[in-house]
């Protein structure tokens, strides 16, 4: 069993900024960065599935999401942060030091890591539609990653579900390949930012299906051929023939392993007070795991910095 002063769980902008600051403060942090996956819950976090980031200050020409995350990781490494490519499977927060179990340990009976201070930056992941054959159709028409899969839908009719910035960003990206992109939204107005709305409305490949939800996925030979939409006002059903469906309907915090141990709101987001302190002394939370309002790379990074400074002060106060 290894003991660390500080362990950071998660490696998006919040976790890596916390790692940069705590490593510069000589706290020798270990980052448990997650496991490779094609969902948004993976090392580097949600930005690994995006393309161009235009609003991160300091990059006037923009930069690619994965590039930003690779840079942040190198920066944390440079100051001595160490990394473990695994997921945390269980934590014990009722005794000090805190104990952690990880997905790469053989024997799950005993913890492999302990730490004095814990920074939780596990973020949030994309929600799926939860339709019955959705999982089988991932990779066969249903996609969770427009940047990975858009290329294969050249000249085809496809749809994006959602009405936020992520949905519009995906739709606009997909117009580079697709013949047409239908944005399916359950309300009659978008919650996306003005600039994204203006771009979507101006794009002639994009049409909107307002007040609609997807109720069925149709396939032939295990490949998506269309969907059924239901009107949220009239309950009328209508078919839509598409070969690609991209889902961007919102997020859910990655807090399963902390359930019952930390105070959370009804949606499962960790509640923080006095900066990044949680309901357990010595446990701190930053980034999307405790924020369903702002959810930006820059706010996540900012709160990661706050967590690192809070940890530094807290460790000093323990002596």
């Amino acid at each position, binding site marked *: 069993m290894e003991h660390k002063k500080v362990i950071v769980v998660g490696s998006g902008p919040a976790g890596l900024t916390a790692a940069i600051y705590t490593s510069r403060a000589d706290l020798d942090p270990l980052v448990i960065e997650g*496991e*490779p*996956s*094609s*969902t948004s819950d*993976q*090392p*580097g976090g949600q930005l*690994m*599935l995006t*393309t161009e980031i235009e609003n991160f200050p300091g990059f006037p020409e923009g930069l690619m*999401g*994965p590039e930003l995350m690779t840079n942040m990781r190198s920066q944390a490494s440079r100051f001595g942060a160490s990394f473990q*490519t*695994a997921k945390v499977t269980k934590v014990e927060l009722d005794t000090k030091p805190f104990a952690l179990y990880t*997905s*790469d340990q053989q024997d799950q009976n005993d913890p492999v890591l302990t730490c004095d201070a814990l920074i939780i930056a596990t973020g949030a992941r994309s929600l799926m539609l939860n339709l019955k054959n959705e999982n089988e159709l*991932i*990779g*066969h*028409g249903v*996609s969770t*990653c427009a*940047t*990975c*899969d858009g*290329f*294969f*839908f050249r000249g085809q009719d496809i749809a994006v579900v959602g009405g936020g910035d992520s949905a519009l960003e995906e739709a606009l990206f997909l117009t580079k390949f697709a013949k047409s992109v239908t944005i399916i939204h359950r309300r009659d107005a978008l919650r996306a930012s003005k600039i994204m709305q203006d771009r979507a409305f101006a794009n002639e490949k994009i049409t909107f299906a307002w007040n609609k939800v997807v109720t069925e996925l149709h396939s032939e030979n295990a*490949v998506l051929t269309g969907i059924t939409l239901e009107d949220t006002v009239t309950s009328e059903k209508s078919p839509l023939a598409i070969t*690609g469906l991209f889902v961007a309907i919102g997020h859910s915090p990655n807090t399963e392993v902390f359930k019952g141990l930390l105070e959370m709101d009804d949606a499962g987001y960790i509640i923080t007070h006095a900066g990044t302190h949680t309901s357990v002394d010595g446990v701190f939370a930053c980034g999307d795991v405790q924020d369903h309002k702002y959810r930006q790379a820059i706010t996540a990074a900012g709160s990661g910095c706050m967590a690192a400074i809070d940890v530094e002060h807290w460790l000093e106060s323990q002596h």
Partner: protein
Amino acid sequence: MNKPDIAQLNDANFDEWIKTSEKPVLVDFWAEWCGPCKMIAPILEQIAVEEEARVGIAKLNVDNSLEVARRYEVMSIPTLILFKNGQVAKRIVGAMPKSSLMRELNPHLS
């Protein structure tokens, strides 16, 4: 670690390579612009070294070899397809940790 021996396949050399390989070949359909593909690349390099006796690793960039990608109905990357004697033995869509990947592959390797 030894330098991994990874074949670079394309529309021109794919069929010949898959047909003539003496051991099963795991083909990684990937592209430069795909984040999860980058995550899985080092894992495949490790497998290429550690499992050299049991499986060959090859990469096919879908950007310049769309014909092969279309033929195997690749609609999402990374897609990994294991070929045995020129036939598809296993298809794996999406990035995953090495342990999970080996769990999927093991039943198909001798």
